[in-house]
């Protein structure tokens, strides 16, 4: 047994308890809301072309969320989850990675996919669960996934991706790949057992995984001060013996800087890193939720002043890398394109009945084939009751 890991302090002969809040955690802030940077701030590596790509992804994200919330209210999609106010955590995270890096998200990380080029059609086909959806219309809206873009398909149960990320990253390391895994989760999901299992596994087995906590203040209605009483999620990284940083999650330059450094560390040292990004869920948990039952408009208004997209836009304007005319045109074009894409996707057929039984296993076993055959005969008898599939049997 190696006892070197115990960093012993002085030996004492009367009890000396360590206070539960004795770990002080600095917060990285680079960009101010007015678009200026803090004195001596270390900026991330970011060219003008990359910055423009990042800003366009943020704009796409904002318009997509606005349009889809409206579409849900109109009854065109059953459900939606916006990431209003948290866009910097995901767009910035993806922008700081290499394309071969894996992303394992919770469910509010569409920003990563936008940055990586998931097409508007792919978004719409998933949201409308039609036959062109890469997930074959099986999951609720926003459960995106793309093998091509190294973005694992979303699973609703919370925290399950965290130990999976540790294993995935360990495999990347063993195979000598220049790749890491970026794993997103919320401060609520960090209460799940899988969080603790995943962090410890990654630390013990030295997996190059970046754990990225979007601390947005709420798990549905439960505020973070009813979720934990320790010093946030960052303090737990210290407990598992991993490099940890807390950042302003509404500051996309801080997000990019932290993820760039975390990636370099994970690759070079084969070690996990924990990032806790402090932000705020400006919108409802989902379209099934109404935050007026658990928080005030004043609180929301206060956080709206920290809008990460407005902040980055101000910086872009100050660099003279962007202007208001381009901005107006971008948002106008996005609104038109997304509305047009909604109209196309909602007219595409639902998946055929065969898709009910495929992918349960690699092949359809006999008993399922029999169930499918019986189902088809049944649908033929009552075609009006199964309008999505009856016409194609």
């Amino acid at each position, binding site marked *: 047994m190696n006892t070197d890991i115990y960093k012993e302090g002085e030996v004492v002969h009367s009890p000396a308890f360590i206070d539960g809040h004795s770990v002080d955690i600095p917060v990285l802030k680079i960009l101010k809301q007015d678009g200026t940077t803090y004195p001596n701030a270390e900026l991330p590596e970011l060219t003008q072309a990359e910055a423009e790509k990042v800003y366009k992804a943020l704009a796409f994200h904002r318009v997509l969320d606005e349009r889809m919330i409206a579409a849900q209210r109109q009854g065109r999609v059953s459900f939606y989850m916006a990431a209003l106010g948290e866009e910097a955590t995901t767009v910035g995270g993806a922008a700081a990675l290499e394309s071969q890096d894996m992303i394992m998200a919770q469910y509010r990380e569409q920003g990563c996919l936008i940055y990586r080029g998931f097409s508007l059609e792919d978004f719409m086909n998933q949201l409308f669960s039609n036959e062109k959806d890469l997930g074959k219309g099986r*999951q*609720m809206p926003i459960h995106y996934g793309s093998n091509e873009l190294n973005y694992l398909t979303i699973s609703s149960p919370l925290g399950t991706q965290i130990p999976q990320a540790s294993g995935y990253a360990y495999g990347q390391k063993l195979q000598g790949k220049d790749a890491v895994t970026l794993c997103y989760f919320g401060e609520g999901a960090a209460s799940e057992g899988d969080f603790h299992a995943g962090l410890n596994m990654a630390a013990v087995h030295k997996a190059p995984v970046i754990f990225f906590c979007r601390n947005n203040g709420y798990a549905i209605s439960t505020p973070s001060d009813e979720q934990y009483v320790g010093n946030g999620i960052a303090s737990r990284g210290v407990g598992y013996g991993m490099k940890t940083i807390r950042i302003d999650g509404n500051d996309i330059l801080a997000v990019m800087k932290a993820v760039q450094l975390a990636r370099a560390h994970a690759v070079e040292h084969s070690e996990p890193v924990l990032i806790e990004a402090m932000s705020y869920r400006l919108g409802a948990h989902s379209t099934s939720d109404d935050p007026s039952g*658990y928080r005030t408009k004043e609180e929301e208004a206060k956080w709206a002043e920290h809008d990460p997209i407005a902040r980055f836009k101000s910086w872009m304007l100050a660099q003279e890398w962007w202007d208001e005319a381009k901005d107006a045109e971008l948002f106008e074009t996005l609104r038109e394109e997304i509305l047009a894409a909604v109209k196309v996707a909602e007219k595409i057929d639902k998946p055929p*009945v065969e898709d009910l039984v495929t992918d349960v296993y690699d092949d359809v076993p006999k008993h399922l084939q029999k169930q499918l055959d019986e189902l088809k005969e049944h649908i033929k008898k009552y075609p009006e009751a199964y309008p999505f599939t009856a016409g194609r049997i």
Partner: protein
Amino acid sequence: MAQMNLLQAINNALDIAMAEDDSTLCFGEDVGHFGGVFRATSGLQEKYGKARCFNTPLVEQGIIGFANGLAAQGSRPIAEIQFADYIFPAFDQIVNETAKFRYRSGNQFDVGRLTIRTPYGGGIAGGLYHSQSPEAYFAHTPGLKVVVPRNPYQAKGLLLASIRDDNPVIFFEPKRLYRASVGEVPEDDYQLPIGKAEVVTQGTDISLLAWGAQMEIIEKAAEMAANEGISCEIVDLRSILPWDVETVANSVMKTGRLLVSHEAPVTAGFAGEIAATIQQECFLHLESPIARVCGVDTPYPLSLEREHMADHLKVFEAIKRTVNY
């Protein structure tokens, strides 16, 4: 009597239970001030205080482990798991702890005061993780009781009985009916028996057996069958574990035929257990094989939900096949 929906009936039962016993607690994710994502615990924190009705951290294994500890200590915990699809992180606490607490200690310790409430079931465009009916996993676990109500009146009476039962009970609430099912419910305290099925409608040609939200489906199918001159006896099992073999067997001995329907996939679903027992009990009375109309053996899909479900048309067709066997 008052008109209540299923959620109001549950809320009313919880209110009665908390009022009668100071050691009764309600907790789970978003259960406190907000009253739960479906509002089943609305108003309870205001009425009974934050110490007895509260939000927990987001950790199902923690919720049930904590509840096991409370119950062992002598309190009466009513733990909510937000969706039955999310009960699995707590599977170890339920299967290895809740169910075996009494047995392993020679009855020195028990968690009989524990009730776990959780919404289950599909038909709400919930996809894979907001639709499942996991009752069969728990029915395979001696030491648990498993109860599923079909309407507001049943929900209140069965929930009060579950809370007061000296054994741990998992109470599956049909969420599709939370607001859709409305009926007369006594405002006073009453209980309905656990472990007892109910013959809802008398009939002569075939017994139809289901539980929870699936009762509506078999009732609709029975109406269609009646139009074709088939008389269905409709039975609500109400308790999955222990289940009322006697009432079901008596019905089958009368009608000579049995159809069991549940939302969960057919393979290793609880209908299989019922069929095995009833062919043993009623072999010489059976005029046709026992029929099962259940979910297809796949995860619960979103866009092909209708195709996957054991709907009234599938039940109706199976009734005709069974009667004409």
